[in-house]
């Protein structure tokens, strides 16, 4: 005879064994139900949370952007802010958005060249030191020569050159963001 207070106090060992297996079944069922409920809730939520991770959520027009008149470009680099006519940023469509700074100059052969102002080390915006004739990154003291080659500092490559086209006396530059950090120039 089991204890009087025991809820499973039915007589006999056989019933007790049956009760034990019933409770084992209930515990397993509880685990399955709980797991199922958790999954049913967390799978949609997780998919939603990560839903935009693999998407290009911020985009602008890929065409070259009008930067400056050809005759304004000299041997000394000029900092020009490239502005996108429109940018799609998730739900928003915004007009005339600054994308980044480029340094435009004429090389000794007379060709117009453009260097991205994004430091290839960690992506800070670099400045130009007119006295020294070098580009300087303020974040970690990276120094780059006039044509973009790395002089000193932590960057693993020189400044990234951007494609330039001349159209009707205007310099047009295609804005590309490259991955920073590595020694290879790979579009981000």
């Amino acid at each position, binding site marked *: 005879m089991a204890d009087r*207070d*025991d*809820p499973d106090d039915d007589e006999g060992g056989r019933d007790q064994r049956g009760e034990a297996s019933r*409770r084992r079944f*209930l*515990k397993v*069922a*509880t685990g399955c*139900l*709980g797991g*199922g*409920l958790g999954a*049913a*809730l*967390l799978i*949609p*939520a*997780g*998919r*939603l*949370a990560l*839903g*935009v991770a693999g998407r290009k959520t911020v985009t602008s027009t890929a065409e070259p952007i009008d930067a400056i008149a050809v005759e304004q470009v000299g041997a000394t680099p000029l900092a020009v802010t490239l502005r996108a006519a429109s940018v*799609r940023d*998730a*739900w*928003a*469509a*915004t*007009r005339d958005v600054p994308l980044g700074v480029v340094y435009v100059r004429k090389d000794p052969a007379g060709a117009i060249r453009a260097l991205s102002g994004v430091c290839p080390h960690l992506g800070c915006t670099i400045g130009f030191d007119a006295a020294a004739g070098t580009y300087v990154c303020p974040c970690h003291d990276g120094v780059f020569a006039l044509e973009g080659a790395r002089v000193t500092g932590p960057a693993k490559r020189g400044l990234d050159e951007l494609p330039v086209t001349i159209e009707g006396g205007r310099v047009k530059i295609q804005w590309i963001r490259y991955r920073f950090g590595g020694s290879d120039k790979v579009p981000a």
Partner: protein
Amino acid sequence: MSVGDWLDERTGYRAALRAAEAPMPGGPSVLRTLGPVLGFLFVLELVTGLVMAMYYSPSTNDAWASVAYLEDQVAMGAFVRGLHRWGMSAIVLVIGMHLVVTAVSGAYRRPREVVWWLGVLLFVMALAFSVTGFVLRWDQYGYWATKVELAYIIEGPGPGRQMVAALQGGNDFGNLTLTRFYALHVALLPVLTGLLVWGHRRLSRRHGPHAPAGAKARGRGWPDQTVRNLAAMLVTLVALFAWTAHRGGAGLEAPADSTSTFDARPQWYFRPMFELQKYVPASLKLAIALGLPVVVMGWLFGLPLVDRKPVRSRFMRGSVLAVLAVFAVVLGGSIVASYRADARDAGLHERRAEAAKQAGRARRLALANGVPAGGGLQVYTTAPFYRARTVWARECASCHEGDDRKGPLIGAGFNDRAWIRGVIADPAHDDYFGKTKMVKAEDAMPKTTAPAADIDALAEMVYAETGAKDADPAKVARGQAVFDSDDDDGDGEDDEGTCTACHERTGVEGSSGPNLAGRGSPAYLAALIRNPAEERFFGVRDEMKAFGKDKVSDDDLAALVEYLTWLRTATPADVAALDD
């Protein structure tokens, strides 16, 4: 020492498990699953709310756009948002059931009064979640429903206006309303609710399951009641999934527009406040709207204070049942009556269909073009020819559209071959110049009697003047020959009223009829709109107003001319699609 021992020494979990395995007075029961189901629904709201917060932006410029983005452009977005909205409805429903079961069984009685009160406060929290959450979508529905709710508070007794000013953050609905309601909805209310749930559970454990005196203890909390709880949660979740799928999510109307009208109806659980007003005189409407929740909540709070005898009397039990029955009839009945009244209202159906069309249009535009930085309403400006159509509606439509117009009909196919041919063949036709005064003049242009092939050639010649690239040069040359000849009907004799008598087809010289050089080209249209009374256009016969820069700016004019040029190749379906 095993990991279990280590953990038990620090948490005492084994004792808690043993306690959960203790026999339950009254035994496991389906009715006891309602509390756990509510806990589960609150977790569901928390999880779905958290992931939605990753997409939401509480500003008047972004709110609608970010919800539309979640709804239409993110996988599972519409479904999760639907679960969040309808989960709220499920919470209200299950709280109602939980309250009824507790009230009928008398489980609110000593010593469980505080458990009951915390439960009633959780009911209030749920309703507060509903009110603060609904405005966040910043669509017509959320905007107007919340505005009306706040208007009741303003009209109500006490410092209603000041309360609303504090709640909405100043004198009007705007950015601060969204940031405040958002802060309440995602920070303050969840924390308060968490505390209340913690207290409610802790105290109800302290007192143990409620059961009638003398009820036999049988079954166990774990696993007998637990498995019932989980099964009930599963049933709830399946029902919620099915309902959400059936409703296609939470829905999203057009962006909030403070200048428009919208038939905002309250959530079903607030419907009695809306519906019962219809049955009372105007002076009592506010009392109904504000008094009803006070009566219901007051009764719930006061119940344990009234029912205090050591043994529950049959009278008390009976009166609780009677009050619940009255609530069921009045609240339930008014909800049903309200939905039935809406179902019978044909005007409402029409306005809702119109609103749905507007919502579809706004969401399609948002999907295709994004929402401009100026906010949800700006999405309409991204529609094709938006600027031109606005100018058209403001300045042009009254004379060039509809039966009351005074000028030629301008629509799809304007200045295409068929249109030009029609004008040449029968200028006084109703679709062309039939509504003008000039066709009634004695020297008005007559019907052209030339052979069909000649009219075709003339039409091709005029068509080429529009700048259309597909004009047939041979036909144009033939048209010019017919135009220049004085024998238009080809009978070998000179005719009266030949083309050249009234029209030039080169230069900018005026004559009695319009000069046809460049007719219908963008430059011609722009110049004509600016001054139609110019000699080369209608001259002294002109009936059309001049549209100077004060009426149509240069940019507007350029947009309008682009639109008119587009009409030449557009079909009626293309034009109708602009309004979809």
